[in-house]
């Protein structure tokens, strides 16, 4: 059985930053990624990031991916296992892996779970027709594989992902017939909404998909308006043609491993569903298990990166490692994390986090 100081599960923005922070502290890090390359969702994020310079604001996700990947490669004490999926986490701290088809066991001193999230789905008639995709899949087809996924799309969901993927579809030469959202107002950043609005894409709020149509594949959908109690308004149905329906209605934390090992979980809708309780060092109810990124609550990638750094530092500190200015560096990350959530768009995140934080503002 392999031993390591810190196993980091997930090579997205949170896991990459956690690995770098832990490696700086001198920890022996094993970074485990189920895909063949590191980066998680960054590999297809061709848009510029928000935030400040410390979180690579104005830099495109694909470029942040390269920066973090290069940084990881600088450390001899980071071992990267790609094509490797963690199958289970057990009470004795052992994790089991499918490593390129071979079964492996590992006993890390600390585990940082940074598994990210999966896309939510919607129930409606004929939702199994070919041509109905999650927005993430469409973004992968376009931006990773260079495949034009459709000719005309209706996007369901006006959150940041729905708005950004709509814009990128337009960049790929796909027409976006409409962006619909059941909520009465746009969930994503308004600047993203304005970006697609000025390309002539109608954004229809209080509108949802009632059914999809088509025989071999989708050819259109029926939409319906919703009243202020989210009930369908009779007679408000309308037809929208499309050969691709893109579903972007939010993300759910990928928390199965945390459930397996017995972390305390709480249901917090504003964080995306069940999330682990944790202290402000990202330590869960189990001393050896830390979390970072979307698995701990759905947020922007900038927050995921900062959380990764905090978890990497604190997990390393808990096994007796340290570095110059440790306290100062940690305090800076915690301040970055707070400042990203301080504004009105962070209201729901702050309220959600208040429900899952163990011990309030511990040191």
């Amino acid at each position, binding site marked *: 059985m392999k031993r390591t100081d810190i196993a980091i599960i997930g090579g997205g923005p949170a896991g990459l930053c956690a690995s770098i922070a832990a490696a700086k502290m001198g920890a022996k890090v094993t970074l485990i990624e189920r895909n063949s390359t590191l980066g998680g969702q960054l590999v297809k994020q061709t848009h510029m990031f*928000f935030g400040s310079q410390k979180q690579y604001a*104005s830099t495109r996700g694909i470029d942040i991916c390269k920066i973090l990947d290069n940084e990881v490669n600088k450390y001899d004490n980071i071992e990267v296992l790609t094509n490797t999926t963690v199958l289970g986490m057990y009470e004795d701290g052992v994790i089991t892996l499918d490593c390129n088809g071979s079964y492996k066991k590992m006993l890390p001193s600390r585990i940082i779970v940074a598994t990210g999230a999966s896309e939510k789905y919607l129930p409606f008639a004929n939702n199994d027709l070919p041509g109905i995709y999650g927005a993430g899949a469409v973004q992968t087809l376009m931006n990773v594989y260079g495949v034009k996924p459709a000719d005309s799309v209706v996007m369901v969901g006006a959150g940041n992902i729905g708005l950004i993927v709509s814009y990128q579809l337009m*960049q790929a030469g796909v027409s976006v017939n409409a962006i619909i959202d059941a909520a009465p107002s746009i969930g994503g950043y308004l*600047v993203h909404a304005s970006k697609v609005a*000025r390309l002539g894409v109608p954004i229809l*709020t209080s509108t949802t998909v009632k059914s999809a149509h088509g025989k071999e594949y989708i050819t259109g959908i029926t939409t319906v308006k919703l009243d202020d109690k989210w009930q369908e308004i009779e007679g408000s149905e309308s037809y929208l043609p499309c050969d691709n329906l893109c579903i972007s209605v939010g993300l759910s934390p990928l928390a199965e491993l945390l459930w397996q090992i017995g972390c305390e979980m709480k249901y917090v809708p504003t964080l995306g569903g069940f999330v682990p309780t944790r202290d402000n060092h990202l330590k869960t109810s189990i001393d050896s298990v830390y979390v970072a990124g979307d698995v701990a609550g759905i947020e922007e990638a900038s927050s995921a990166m900062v959380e990764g750094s905090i978890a990497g530092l604190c997990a390393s500190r808990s096994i007796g490692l340290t570095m110059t200015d440790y306290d100062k560096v940690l305090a800076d990350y915690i301040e970055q994390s707070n400042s990203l959530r301080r504004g*009105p*768009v962070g209201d729901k995140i702050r309220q959600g986090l208040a429900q899952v934080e163990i011990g309030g503002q511990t040191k």
Partner: protein
Amino acid sequence: MIQKDGIATQEMIDSITPSAERRSKGPVAVVECFQSIPCNPCYTSCPRKAMKELIDINDMPQVNTDICNGCGVCISHCPGLAIFVIDETYGDNQCLIKMPYEFTPLPSEGDYVTATDRGGKPVCRGKVVKVVNTPMQDRTPIIHLVVPKEFSMIVRSLNINDIYDDNTYICRCEELTLGELREYIRKGYTTLDEIKRITRAGMGPCQGRTCRQLIMNEIAKLTGVKPQDQLMSTFRPPVKPVKLGFYAQEDTDNE
């Protein structure tokens, strides 16, 4: 309402419109960011410190229009692509709008495009006078678009297709489209008469009253020869189409 359709209201636009006095002095940045979000590259990228310091990263951007010289560095740094530069001193009745444009194909200098508003609706024809696309812009090219001055705070995007697309009719009598006309001009038919002879445009019922000016303008656009310098076609009777038999009549009025 912007929360419902992504389009800023007139009230919001008014709140960020530089004063008429400032606009009359030259280029200035217009930041169309109407929501407090954690983001600050507009402030950090400004070489002149014309953006009010964002003490909290969630503060809203504010341009000091006395310091801003409209250089446009912030345009490509804004992750929300929400910054534009307007210059109402560009020409007597024209203004220049610098806008981010992340689509291919990029328009070329000299191209006419359809200038659109915040909802993507066509406003007017615009002329691309410059395309700035260096490593500094990091794949967010900046288009310099010239439109009539009254649209400086209205035009915010462009459609690379000219407001007159290839299927637009130039001569309805003889069914000549703009696309066909452009093709002939590119082939070397660069005078009104040459176009008339190859396409019959001008030989129909209206005798060129619809198409003549349009053809001359298009020749001017593609060859650079202004209408006043082009060869005018030869005018011969009759000024309207008449049947041959008409001329076979004898004028019996022998005064």
